[in-house]
């Protein structure tokens, strides 16, 4: 279980997060939605310790990880897949994956690189290619695959659909859905593309100006026309 309680953060005088609280259940996809600038990415960065929180706490399986150093989170089983397809462009596909497996969740078995290639055959074909030669979809597959190498229990995904063709988005979301079931993952999916996100999410949290304005099962949110118009843009 992954829980965020009353979390706040600021960039200088600007409050970017203001008392955010939600819980993500095991084996479920929790979508965090909202317009540009709503604080979605800041939320993930604060959870990872890239942005310092000013208040509140983050709990992973009842363990407080609010002040844990960013570098240690993978060993606790939490993997953050950054936005902008954070591949390390200068390394090859295999090297990116190897890197992902170097700091695994404590006590977990190492995952063979081949396992990722089974999940994403496209990557297997390009295993020796330098990452900057990959397409947008391939990069997204690579960062997800790389995160899996650390054997996480909680996966934070930041805008995986950004800049991808709808067909590719659907493909990646399908894979994600499958993974959640087979690996018993807790997924927090930050998305601007609310329609697609809600289509695979179990639960949805809507942020606006750093505050939670709605938190409900995905189907309920998708049905709330007023909310959709006001915050989700569809």
């Amino acid at each position, binding site marked *: 279980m992954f829980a965020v309680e009353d979390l706040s953060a600021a960039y200088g005088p600007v409050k970017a997060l203001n008392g955010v609280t939600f819980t993500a259940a095991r084996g479920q996809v929790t979508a965090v939605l909202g317009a540009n600038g709503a604080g979605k990415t800041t939320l993930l960065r604060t959870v990872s310790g890239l942005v310092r929180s000013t208040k509140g706490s983050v709990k992973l399986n009842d363990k407080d990880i609010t002040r844990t150093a960013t570098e240690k989170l993978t060993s606790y089983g939490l993997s953050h897949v950054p936005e902008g397809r*954070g591949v390390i462009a200068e390394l090859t596909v295999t090297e990116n994956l190897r890197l992902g497996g170097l700091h695994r969740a404590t006590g977990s078995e190492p995952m063979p690189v081949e396992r990722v290639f089974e999940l994403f055959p496209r990557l297997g074909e390009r295993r020796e290619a330098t990452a900057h030669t990959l397409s947008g979809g391939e990069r997204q597959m690579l960062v997800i695959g790389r995160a899996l190498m650390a054997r996480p229990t909680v996966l934070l995904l930041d805008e995986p659909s950004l800049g991808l063709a709808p067909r590719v988005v659907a493909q990646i979301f399908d894979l994600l859905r499958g993974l959640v079931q087979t690996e018993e993952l807790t997924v927090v999916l930050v998305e601007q593309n609310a329609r697609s996100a809600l289509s695979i999410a179990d639960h949805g949290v809507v942020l606006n100006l750093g505050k939670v304005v709605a938190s409900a099962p995905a189907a309920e949110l998708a049905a709330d026309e007023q909310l959709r118009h006001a915050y989700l843009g569809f």
Partner: protein
Amino acid sequence: MQQFLDTTLGGLVLGAVYAAFALALCLIWRSTRIVNFAQAAMAMVTTYIALSLINADVPYWVAFMAAIAAGFGLGAVIERVIIRPVEGKAELNAVILTLGLFMVLHGLTAITFGVQHRGFPAPVGTSAISVGDTSIGITPFGILTIVVVALVMAGLVVLFRFTDLGLRMRAAAFNGEVSRLLGVRVGRMLTLGWALAAAVGAVAGMLIAGGDLVNPAFMDPFVIYGFIAAVLGGLDSPLGSVIGGLILGLSLSYVTGYVGEHLAPLVALGILMVVLLVRPSGLFAAAAARRV
């Protein structure tokens, strides 16, 4: 013909040392995007440490290892204490800071060890090798220099290509934030990068000093020549640095041998400007064009 051969061989030996030095600059550039103008002074300090050990009757190769260890420690301390605060800040700050460090190390060495020229021993012969009756313009120490530089390069290739530590270091250098999210201790890797670079610099210092006179200024030409060799190869590319070093070593050897020693810096400046203006990403850049 004989002179050409001698000059070429001399240039190769010189180039090998430039290559090692450029490699050190390249390591630091890759890890922290800083050109370390204090690299030469750091290497000079470690060479002096080795000299004091040798003068205290410590065997040469023990002193050699001590110089490398000292370089490693010096690089780590400097990164942690002095460089860390300006990492990621305006690039002018780092330039001025390393230049200041250059002056401080220079002066402190002069105060500690004196400014007089001192002889520095070589572990093997420094007389030209003879083949039959004619001697060729390379000494056993020259050969040793090339071998050591080649070993250092091979070691670095193995480290970076085939070990997990090397992978971590490269990742930390290329993308610190993503690396942190993957669990890499980026701060440690940057420190390690500086430490390794300073150790490579220390090797270069020992190779330059062997069989020659040293004084606190003996590494000064490397401030510019090392930089030029590294830029020639594209700062980012270790292989480029090595080739850049060899090209520069040969060019300067020919200039000194056939035109005049005093024109060497001018020719070096010419090479630098041509590279920067015509091929800004260096002769062997792999990735996208860099902004100079």
